């Protein structure tokens, strides 16, 4: 409860939470506010924002409602960001746990693989994965998760290494608990909090990665995503710059919200490190 009170004492953390709730609210209410397909033709193309009450944020090059695409885009960004983060954390915790718990050659092999992933620019790897497996919503989400696991793996490894010989683990070992029981039941709950906090960084980066991919028209073209809309607006950038500007602000706000909440959680859970 202390942590909750500390969290709400920080104005930045509260602002982040409010922004995040707004974005989640947009994602939830999209179907209810805009029951029609957001990618369907809605009106004349390239209506400026605030000039027509039917299209509050205007329409894009092909006459689709920008506001509807922003609301549905919140779904896609949160979905891809969330699921990719879960994938990255799962792989990262698995690799980090084995590496940190067993050490020795297991550690050497797993860390070599982690290093290989870190040496390769993650966006280049993402391009290769999309080139090979195609760009549907599922493959893009998995690909973003697959390029994001090395950092959580290193974090988990460090936690496991510092925890594996503590008294409570040794006590469990003398009680005859199996390795897997020790790892899951004893070490993992203690190692997890910093990893969970780090998940906010992974999610922020995942949202940015997907939007960059969509901007390059290498993500799923059949969903209303913010990156797709920015890429589309590029064709009319010289005059109707708002088509690209509006979804960019949506991405900025979402990533900012996720980072602020992550930082707030970090400060609330580790009060001694505040301000770092």
């Amino acid at each position, binding site marked *: 409860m202390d942590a909750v009170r500390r969290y709400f004492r920080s104005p930045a953390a509260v602002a982040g939470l409010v922004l995040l709730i707004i974005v989640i609210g947009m994602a939830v209410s999209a179907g209810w506010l805009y029951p029609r397909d957001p990618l369907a033709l809605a009106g004349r193309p390239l209506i400026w924002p605030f000039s027509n009450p039917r299209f509050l944020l205007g329409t894009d090059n092909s006459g689709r409602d920008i506001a509807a695409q922003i609301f549905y885009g919140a779904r896609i960004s949160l979905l891809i960001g969330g699921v990719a983060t879960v994938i990255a954390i799962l792989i990262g915790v698995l690799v980090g746990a084995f590496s940190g718990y067993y050490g020795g050659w297991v550690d050497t092999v797993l860390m070599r693989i982690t290093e290989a992933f870190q040496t390769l620019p993650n*966006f280049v790897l993402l391009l290769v994965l999309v080139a090979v497996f195609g760009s549907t919503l599922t493959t893009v989400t998995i690909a973003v998760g697959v390029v994001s696991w090395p950092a959580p793996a290193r974090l988990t490894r460090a936690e496991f290494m510092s925890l594996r010989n503590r008294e409570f683990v040794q006590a469990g070992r003398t009680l005859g608990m199996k390795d897997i029981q020790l790892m899951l039941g004893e070490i993992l709950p203690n190692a997890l909090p910093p990893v969970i906090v780090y998940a906010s960084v992974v999610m922020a980066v995942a949202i940015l990665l997907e939007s960059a991919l969509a901007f390059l028209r290498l993500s799923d073209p059949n969903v209303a995503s913010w990156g797709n809309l920015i890429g589309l607006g590029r064709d009319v950038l010289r005059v109707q710059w708002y088509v690209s500007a509006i979804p960019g602000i949506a991405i900025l706000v979402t990533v900012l919200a996720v980072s602020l909440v992550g930082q707030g959680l970090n400060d609330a859970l580790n009060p001694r490190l505040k301000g770092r």
Partner: protein
Amino acid sequence: MRILGLAGRRLAASIPTLILILIGMFLLLQFAPGDTVDAMMAQMGGGDAATAKDLRKFYGLDVSIPAQLGNYLWRLVRLDLGFSSIYGKPVASVIIERLPPTILLMTASLSFAFFFGLLFGVIAARGVNRWPDTLISTLGLVFYATPSFWFGLMAIVVFSVYLQWLPPGGFEDIGTVQTGIWRVLGIASHLVLPTLTLGLIFLAIYLRIMRASMLEVLNLDYVRTARAKGLDETRVVTRHVLRNALLPMVTLIGLQAGTMLGGSVVVESVFSLPGLGRLAYESVVQRDLNTLLGIVFVSALLVITVNFVVDLIYARLDPRITAGG
């Protein structure tokens, strides 16, 4: 000498990593729908099965996958990256043509991000929790959350379309032939917006790290000693704190080298710079897998090189590394 030996050992340790990457990528690309020959046939507008077979034999695609992998690695040892069917010349020469803009862009962005990150980080740490710190930290958070390609587009709208100060894209003016200093200035003016765009997110990261590391070092005993012997604050910071506070920043350059290379894919596409990143994008779109594999190899080499240089700088900044090693 000792520094070189130490960094050299780190360099040698990265060779297995490089081989692992190459094998992994090679196997991954086996899953790709269609091979080089399919792409070539599509370019030629189709052809009969006999031609395809001949071509496969010519490019060594008719043997088993392990044999192909062996051939591939053996060719890499001789620095032969294969042939790009799309560009009609060896992959190595395609990549070398595209390398200068990317290296220029990365160096410029890194210098920009490092210098201003350092400056703002120091200013923020000096006025911790007062308004300069709040302003700089907030800006840092916003920059960190800004998608680089979007910032680039908006910069084009403001500086190229409305103010018409800077060119919206390209590497140099093709219309006029320029030589000497004018050519350099022309290229520089084309690189201003891409540099800012790519550097922004790293500026945010560097200033945050610099602020944190300054705050940490400012609390150490030796800084108190320096103050106690009557040095003014500027000298304490420049002579005593900065060198130690720089260490995490230097580490970060090595860690971020790959991210920066990835970021240049997007930035080069926004500003249509003919660099390595744009080549990576084009080869994905055109399914030029040989070139893609070559780019992966070269970018891994670049990242390893940057890390080698970082090791050298690090050892120079922190003599303990060589003394203890």
